[in-house]
């Protein structure tokens, strides 16, 4: 019988105790593996987020953003200045338009409520001409939030107000990207081709197209001009899909603001250069002329994910340490229990290393059994644990800010001053979607590689945990335990 066979046999000497030890170990190892899976999933998500939108900066007119605020509009010259800043790899200008259904606008004007939100006259940097009529009907109902905003902003003494639908956001873009700088996901049809030239083509969000029974090749109007649907896109959100994209020159012409930009999406060549490029852009454009912002909701998301990553790492280490401690204590107990046997083995010539190895292997057998059960536990629990961690952290991170940008970052209501009521997540007007949305898309699955790495760590800890009692066996002198003779 080899040392290994003897160790396996010893591990099952007391079956009830072995079952209890394995059960306790399995819980610790399962928790450790689940935490490792969560940690790896979050790390992958952080990498993905950084790779996708982490290098994007947004430039808005100083004092203005979207259809809010004031200040001077951005210009094509400023876009050229931004493009010349070191480490800037691309600059995409945008122009925003607010489209109102022509029939509803006429009805509201007749009822005298045009001065409210629906009759909003401001625009980015004071772009009064940016509100246009369209044949399109918004895909989003005003609902309670829209009605609430209407009550706050739209009533001017009139006793009753007609139901109001939300506007449709139209954006002129200089490249095939959305307002966050992410490449548009075209689900049907094609893109707009040359985004730097005027065109009568447009891209529609899937829900907006469905609401208006439009498909690729269908036509609709903005003011009096006819546009053809070149493609449909999926922005991933209901709000994002209630939108129209046209080329930048087209939007500038529609707005009557040639050469003006509502915002610029600046792509930096690497994540490491984002901070320095932001500073350089502020210097080049002037802080009194332009506000340069980073994906702050991305930062919020990354911060939350970082917390989850740290918590999961600490929990992994703690659970691993607990497993090691369990093994250590069990093996110390077994060594004490088998002192006489160890003495006998030494008396008949067993070297210390053989006896030590026997106990280490026995610990590994227990760790292997615990790992097998623990891996099963982790495969079922890791998703739930990761979700719970992320949910807790995203809630605590996004719940705190309730006003201004903080609220918008978390996808909270951006109500006052907006036409038509309803919520207006800043992420749609600004560069990024909500942090909560970014967080909820983390997928934690127990991949074989991660489980193998985790079990490898468990075995490492088991060896360390078993070494101490194994070394204790070297100190046992045979005569001490045989003196009972």
């Amino acid at each position, binding site marked *: *019988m*080899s*040392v290994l066979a*003897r160790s396996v*046999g*010893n591990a099952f*000497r007391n079956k009830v105790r072995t079952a209890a030890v394995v059960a306790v170990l399995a819980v610790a190892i399962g928790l450790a593996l689940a935490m490792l899976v969560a940690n790896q999933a979050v790390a992958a998500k952080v990498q993905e987020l950084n790779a996708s939108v982490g290098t994007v900066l947004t430039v808005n007119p100083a004092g203005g953003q979207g259809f809010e605020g004031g200040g001077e509009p951005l210009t094509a010259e400023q876009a050229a200045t931004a493009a010349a800043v070191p480490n800037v790899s691309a600059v995409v200008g945008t122009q925003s338009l607010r489209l109102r259904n022509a029939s509803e606008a006429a009805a509201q004007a007749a009822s005298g409520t045009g001065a409210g939100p629906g009759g909003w006259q401001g625009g980015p940097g004071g772009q009064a001409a940016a509100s246009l009529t369209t044949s399109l009907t918004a895909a989003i109902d005003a609902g309670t939030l829209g009605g609430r905003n209407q009550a706050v902003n739209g009533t001017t003494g009139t006793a009753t107000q007609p139901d109001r639908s939300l506007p449709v956001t139209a954006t002129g873009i200089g490249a095939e990207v959305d307002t966050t700088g992410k490449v548009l996901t075209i689900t049907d049809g094609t893109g707009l081709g040359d985004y730097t030239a005027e065109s009568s083509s447009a891209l529609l969000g899937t829900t907006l197209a469905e609401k208006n029974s439009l498909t690729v090749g269908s036509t609709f109007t903005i003011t009096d001009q006819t546009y053809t649907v070149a493609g449909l896109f999926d922005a991933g959100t209901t709000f994002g899909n209630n939108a129209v994209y046209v080329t930048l020159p087209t939007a500038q012409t529609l707005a009557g603001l040639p050469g003006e930009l509502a915002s610029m999406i600046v792509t930096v060549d690497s994540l490491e250069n984002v901070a320095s490029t932001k500073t350089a852009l502020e210097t080049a454009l002037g802080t009194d002329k332009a506000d340069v912002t980073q994906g702050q909701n991305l930062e919020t998301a990354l911060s939350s994910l970082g917390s989850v990553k740290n918590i999961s790492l600490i929990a992994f280490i703690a659970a691993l340490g607990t497993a090691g401690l369990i093994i250590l204590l069990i093996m110390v107990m077994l060594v004490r229990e088998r002192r*006489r*046997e160890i003495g*006998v*083995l*030494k*008396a*008949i*010539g*067993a*070297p*210390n290393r*053989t006896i030590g190895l026997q106990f280490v292997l026995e610990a590994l057998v227990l760790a292997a059994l615990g790992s097998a059960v623990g891996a099963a536990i982790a495969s079922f629990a890791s998703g739930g644990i990761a979700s719970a961690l992320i949910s807790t952290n995203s809630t605590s991170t996004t719940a705190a800010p309730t006003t201004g940008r903080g609220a918008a970052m978390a996808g909270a209501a951006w109500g006052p001053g907006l036409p038509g009521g309803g919520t207006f997540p800043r992420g749609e007007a600004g560069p990024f979607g909500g942090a909560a949305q970014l967080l909820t898309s983390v997928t934690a699955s127990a991949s074989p590689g991660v489980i193998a790495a985790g079990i490898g760590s468990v075995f490492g800890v088991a060896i360390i945990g078993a070494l101490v009692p194994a070394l204790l066996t070297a100190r046992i002198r*045979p*005569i001490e335990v*045989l003196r*009972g*003779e």
Partner: protein
Amino acid sequence: MIEVKNLVRTFNSGDRTIKPVNDVSFELGQGTLASIVGKSGSGKSTLLSLLGALDKPTSGDVVVNGVSLASMPDAKLTEYRRRDIGFVFQQFNLIPNLSAVDNVMLPMEFAGIRKAARLQRAKELLVQVQLDPDKHARRINRLSGGEQQRVAIARALANEPKLILADEPTGNLDEQTGDHIIELLSSLSRDHNTTILVVTHDRALANKTDRRFRLQQGNLTEEPVHRPVVSASA
């Protein structure tokens, strides 16, 4: 050749100092079958432990084939026990969750003998000590006291040691099996030139040895043996 020189072993018990082995000296030639008799607590087992390098003397020395055990490091003492000593303990000290054959194979495993060879030898030894072949694979805790005694003797013989130290080897055996074990030990010393030192209360066994010692209050004296010497001492 074993030379025991002025061997002393003391233990402290509270304020008292106990001397179970007090200035013991003797020599045993290779192939000698010797016995030590004495009352319980007279120090017989302590002396056996000192000779088997399980314990270290307070003073004095045991010299085996010219090599002093007193100056040997622990690793060398382990090797000495593995290669040169075969122990038969009074309480057998077998590993309970192993089979009879596995117990006999243990010293050979530690000596690095290949599995097939040690399995064959273990079975031969168990046959030699008259353990029923049906019980070779049986766990120790399912064997009777006498059967365990035989397994313990087989284990002591496993590595063909030069010195066998046996503490009451026939204590748990019936007369017939006891006689067989005595004959086996005699033939080992006679035919294989193995030195055997037996601690026993069994007068019959003591009278079948070449030399007989009596340990009394830590002092060893040699007594005449009441039977002809079976084999010539070296």
